[in-house]
């Protein structure tokens, strides 16, 4: 896992000043060896290997015998031409943007709500964390049942006569991607809530008190104090959320397996399916490279917004 946010070790600069540079520089190299080896083996090597695979035609047989021919960018061209890929790309954008927007908004308002005291606050706060605590296999299986034709949602709607036949949440062409997005929003709320709530707690109460004296209303306090002060936290939350969301795999795989009829794939599930269902390792790798480019460009975009503000 990389940290594209440019996280540096806290206090790194101070320590180098208290020791003399001459002795510590070598010691320093010694200490980064484990991390370096780890990153090289588990980060850089797979990345490069994946990129190489994406430039070859790799099937099960050529993969094992090591005789995969180079095909240049043919995998990318075929992938981009593929209708299933095009829909999957749109799905991923839709899934990511909707998830980020709603997770953030809901998390933000919950954080504001919990920033004041009220009865049972502690209990409710831990209840909010439930989605985060549950293993995805549990929540995923639950959502599959929740959205199925004879599941809970349809059961309620039918019982209250809102509909006369079940809505095909995950058994139709258009709805499944929204159903899995909804599930993902639910899963992501605690993450947004925790980060924003922590950020909110750090705002000095005096700022709000003086705003109150100046006669600011609720909206004005949010817009002119909370938002500007929280800005770095907000952007970090969104950036991390973005990385986590683009690479979601398990949730969709458990709920729909990318189906029915390939309509609910994300880039990650499509890549897996091409690799391990069809054994087109080359094309599957090209999908991953495209997915990675998407994550990196979105992160760069958010990072540039952050540095602009600083």
């Amino acid at each position: 896992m990389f940290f594209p946010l440019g996280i540096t070790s806290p206090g790194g600069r101070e320590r180098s000043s208290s020791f003399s540079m001459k002795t510590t520089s070598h010691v320093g190299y010694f200490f980064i060896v484990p991390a370096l080896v780890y990153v090289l083996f588990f980060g850089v090597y797979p990345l490069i290997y994946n990129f190489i695979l994406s430039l070859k035609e790799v099937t099960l047989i050529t993969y094992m015998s090591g005789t995969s021919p180079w095909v240049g960018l043919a995998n990318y061209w075929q992938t981009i031409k593929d209708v299933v890929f095009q829909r999957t790309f749109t799905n991923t954008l839709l899934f990511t943007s909707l998830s980020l927007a709603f997770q953030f908004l809901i998390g933000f308002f919950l954080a504001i709500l919990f920033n004041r005291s009220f009865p049972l606050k502690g209990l409710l706060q831990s209840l909010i964390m439930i989605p985060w605590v549950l293993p995805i296999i549990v929540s995923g299986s639950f959502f599959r049942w929740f959205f199925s034709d004879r599941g809970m949602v349809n059961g309620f709607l039918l019982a209250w006569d809102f509909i006369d036949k079940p809505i095909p949440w995950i058994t139709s062409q258009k709805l499944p991607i929204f159903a899995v997005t909804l599930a993902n929003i639910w899963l992501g709320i605690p993450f947004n809530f925790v980060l924003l709530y922590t950020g909110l707690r750090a705002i000095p109460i005096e700022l709000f008190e003086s705003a109150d004296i100046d006669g600011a209303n609720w909206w004005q306090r949010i817009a002119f104090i909370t938002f500007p002060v929280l800005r770095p936290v907000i952007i970090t939350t969104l950036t991390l959320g973005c990385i986590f969301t683009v690479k979601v795999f398990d949730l969709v795989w458990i709920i729909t397996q990318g189906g029915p009829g390939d309509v609910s794939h994300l880039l990650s599930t499509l890549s897996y399916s091409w690799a391990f269902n069809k054994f087109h390792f080359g094309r599957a790798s090209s999908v991953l490279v495209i997915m990675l480019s998407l994550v990196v460009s979105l992160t760069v975009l958010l990072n540039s917004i952050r540095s602009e503000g600083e």
Partner: protein
Amino acid sequence: MKGGKYVKRFILTFLVLSLGVAVSIGTVAVAQEKVTITVQDYFDPAGGMAKFIDEMAVEFERNHPEVKINHVYIPFAQLLPTILQQSLTRTVPELTMADNPWVPQLIKAGTYKDITDQVKEWGWENWEDFFKGHRELTSANDRIYAFQITTNNLALFYRKGLLEKAGIANPPETWQELKEQSQKIKEALDIYGFAFCATASEEGTWQFEPFLWSNGGSLLELDQPEAIEALQFLTEMVVAGYTPRDIVNVSGQGDVTQWFMNAEVAMMVNGNWEFGWHLTEDVMQQLGDVAVATLPVPQKGMRPVVPFGGECFGISGNIDPAKFDLAWEFLKILGSSDTMLRANIKHGGLPTRASAAGKILAEKPILKPFLDQAQYALPRPLVGGIDKYPDISSTVWVAVQKALTEMATPEEALKNAASAIREIFSAEEYEMYKNMARELLAEARGK
């Protein structure tokens, strides 16, 4: 130089400790210098087959005190990726199991060792005792590479009690009867008459194949009327509400069995492994009315043509020559008629050798429909483009799902699939595989 001293001390401690660890590992290794034969499979460690292999291993170790059998479990979804990695690093375990559709590819890729000479020595009659489809699957160019030790196929499970309540005396024999009975069940009991599994995985294709093949359709000619009719029939069942649309989203065939056990559906397509999984003897007694029939066919008098499933074991292509004889010894035990019979009784599977198949019926009469169908059951890769089968299969399940959820008509869905499948092959290859499939299908249908 304070920092330097700490570093030296650290390095010294580290060296002393690691030396100590290395020495002790060495001593332990010398103490138990045994030949290890690793057996790798995805059989559920709590299930009948895995336990049986464990028993065999204990027995084998008793007879060969110098040998240690190491039985390794890898979950189904991880087994093929694991074999791939092992092939690259030439560390495929001595005895490696694979699901039968992968076997032709693994043979081509050199994962398995040629055991033809050993089989000849053992006695050719042993090989000929295996049913034809299993022999064809585990051999290539007249050389033998593996044994299929268990098989299964699909039949129609039904709840007698529910059928009787709906005024039905006998299970359906034709598609038309299946539809009519499902309608009766829906009207009388307000439950689903019929369910199968149409999930986005090999299981989805595998459950479509009996309908396709029994109607004379081929995976390589999906745009033909025989194929379209088959999917049309299944789609009508879903659209009419006789079959739940949720079949496209079940996590596997086991989910359908849950509905069946809960009396939410009266009839289902499923495999004989269910007797070793959900429908164990105590559950069967509790339900009291579960019965099995051969799958309904398009017209009376036709044969139900089903795909066969099951697992194969072979010896690794990269095996240490010193271990080969021992590995073959163990494989021979797994492939012998008597072991196969005992293993499959525990596993809920069907034996792949004629001599064992005859005997299992006396033990488990409920397996009769499966055994009847097993005679003509087809190996999926051989009627689906051999090593391109996984690719074809994933195209097929997508088409099936599209039709069942009415995203496309059966005709549109299958025509698209057919043209996608044609693109996988060169024109020559396509002709060859298509004709091969035609021949095998005609033979299986008895026409």
